[in-house]
């Protein structure tokens, strides 16, 4: 920063005045002022006998003697700087009090929770949780300080009183208290009479009937849907020596050896995209529903091209649709060419595909597996057989 700018900044804080010097010898007063060390700036002659200039407050006070010597008249045109502003603010007391009160009010209001937001529960559970939170003290109007002190206690209380939630967490963001709930996922308990039937084909290796009558034994081969444990049993009536049929909810564990077949067909010749000269990158900015083009490098290719889009979230608003994000589109010109694959590549690709499909078979433990490769002209076929032992029992209504 130059010396002149520093002088102007200092002048603002010391206060300065715009003056009008009237008289035939305005130069004399300028010389007297400068020679006695006063700083004048913005000196302009605005009329034949009127000179406009700026001077600091203390300089103006010292100019009285110079005015007498030079025979000119000096008048303040305008006042600038912090001392004048300060005086103006101080003289407007109500304005000052209002500004301070408004600031204090904003700070005071922001020390309270004004909104309670629940994320994770819906319907009846949502309403019930709101009521519980209110009873525990978490409601609009509670002070942030109190809430932060009792946060852990309220969380524990809510988790005890709401067994349908696995976890409840409270976080305070500004004036919003966010209650995050992770609902419990439980399988519906079957209370109606049912049988246990086979989910898959397999060879039975273990049968444990908890309720009901087992109808298969170890070593039996069963097909999908076949009855394993019956939910019907006959009970004798001592008074009449008769038997009556009783329907119960069958239950138990039926383990069996199960085989899964995975078939993968891989072509020997494939089309591969090769990048060519011709690439364009476009950046766009999205704020809420509005979209703006920011920049584009290169011309968008024509013909065959790859289009890749990536998002960079800049601001995550409270509502996920109201975020600010940068969208990058990349257009790459490509040409497809035939490529003949080597046997190793074909095998690797087939195995990778088989492994990916195997991953989709959830909750199985492979005990044994066999692979077989077949050449079918333009294709190579892989047959993968997986052997597992698993519980194949499944509840099914009485037939």
């Amino acid at each position, binding site marked *: 920063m130059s010396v*002149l700018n520093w*002088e102007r900044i200092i002048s603002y804080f010391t206060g300065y005045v715009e003056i009008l010097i009237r008289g035939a010898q*305005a*130069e004399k007063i*300028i*010389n007297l*002022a*400068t*020679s006695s*060390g006063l*700083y*004048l*700036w*913005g*000196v*302009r*002659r605005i009329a034949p006998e009127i*000179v406009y*200039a700026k001077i600091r407050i203390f300089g103006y006070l010292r100019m009285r003697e110079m005015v007498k010597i030079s025979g000119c008249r000096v008048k303040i045109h305008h006042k600038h700087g912090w001392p004048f502003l300060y005086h103006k603010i101080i003289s407007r007391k109500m304005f000052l009090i209002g500004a301070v009160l408004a600031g204090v009010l904003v700070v005071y209001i922001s020390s309270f929770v004004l909104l309670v937001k629940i994320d994770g529960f819906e319907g009846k559970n949502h309403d019930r949780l709101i009521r519980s939170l209110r009873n525990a003290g978490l409601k609009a109007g509670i002070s942030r300080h109190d809430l932060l002190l009792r946060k852990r206690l309220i969380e524990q209380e809510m988790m005890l009183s709401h067994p349908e939630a696995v976890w409840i967490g409270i976080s305070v963001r500004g004036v919003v208290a966010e209650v995050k709930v992770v609902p419990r996922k439980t399988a519906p308990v079957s209370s109606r009479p049912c049988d246990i039937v086979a989910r898959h084909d397999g060879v039975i290796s273990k049968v444990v009937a908890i309720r009901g009558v087992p109808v298969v034994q170890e070593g039996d081969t069963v097909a999908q849907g076949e009855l394993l444990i019956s939910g019907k049993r006959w009970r004798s009536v001592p008074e009449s020596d008769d038997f009556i049929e009783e329907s119960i909810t069958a239950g138990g564990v039926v383990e069996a050896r199960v085989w899964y077949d995975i078939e993968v067909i891989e072509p020997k010749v494939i089309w591969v995209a090769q990048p060519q000269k011709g690439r364009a990158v476009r950046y766009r900015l999205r704020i809420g529903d509005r979209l703006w083009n920011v920049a584009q490098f290169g011309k968008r290719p024509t013909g065959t091209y790859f289009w890749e889009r990536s998002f960079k979230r800049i601001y995550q608003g409270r509502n996920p649709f109201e975020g600010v994000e940068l969208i990058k589109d990349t257009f790459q010109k490509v040409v497809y060419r035939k490529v003949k694959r080597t046997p190793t590549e074909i095998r690797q690709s087939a195995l990778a595909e088989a492994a990916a499909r195997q991953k989709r078979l959830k909750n199985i433990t492979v005990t044994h597996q066999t692979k077989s490769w077949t050449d079918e002209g333009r294709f190579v076929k892989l047959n993968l057989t997986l052997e597992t032992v698993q519980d194949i029992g499944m509840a099914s209504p009485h037939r």
Partner: protein
Amino acid sequence: MKKEMKLGEQVARFLEIPLDTMGDWPKVEINANRSVTIHNHRGVIEYDQNIVRLNTKLGEIKISGVNLALVTAMKDEIVIEGKIVRAELLDWR
């Protein structure tokens, strides 16, 4: 007085001291035709929108132009802004 100055100048030349460091000699800087900065002046003789005349130790400097204003006026430095047309040195010793 004249002899002293000449002697001082001679000594400066002998010792190869730059002349712009010589005591209170006036120094004039002209930035294009927009502003003139004059150091070591000795007061304003005349100030008008078209003419500014300044006194210095060695003589008078006359700046002619259009809409001339004294942007800064201090004890030993003065900055003139406006459209500068001519700068003259008058009655220099």
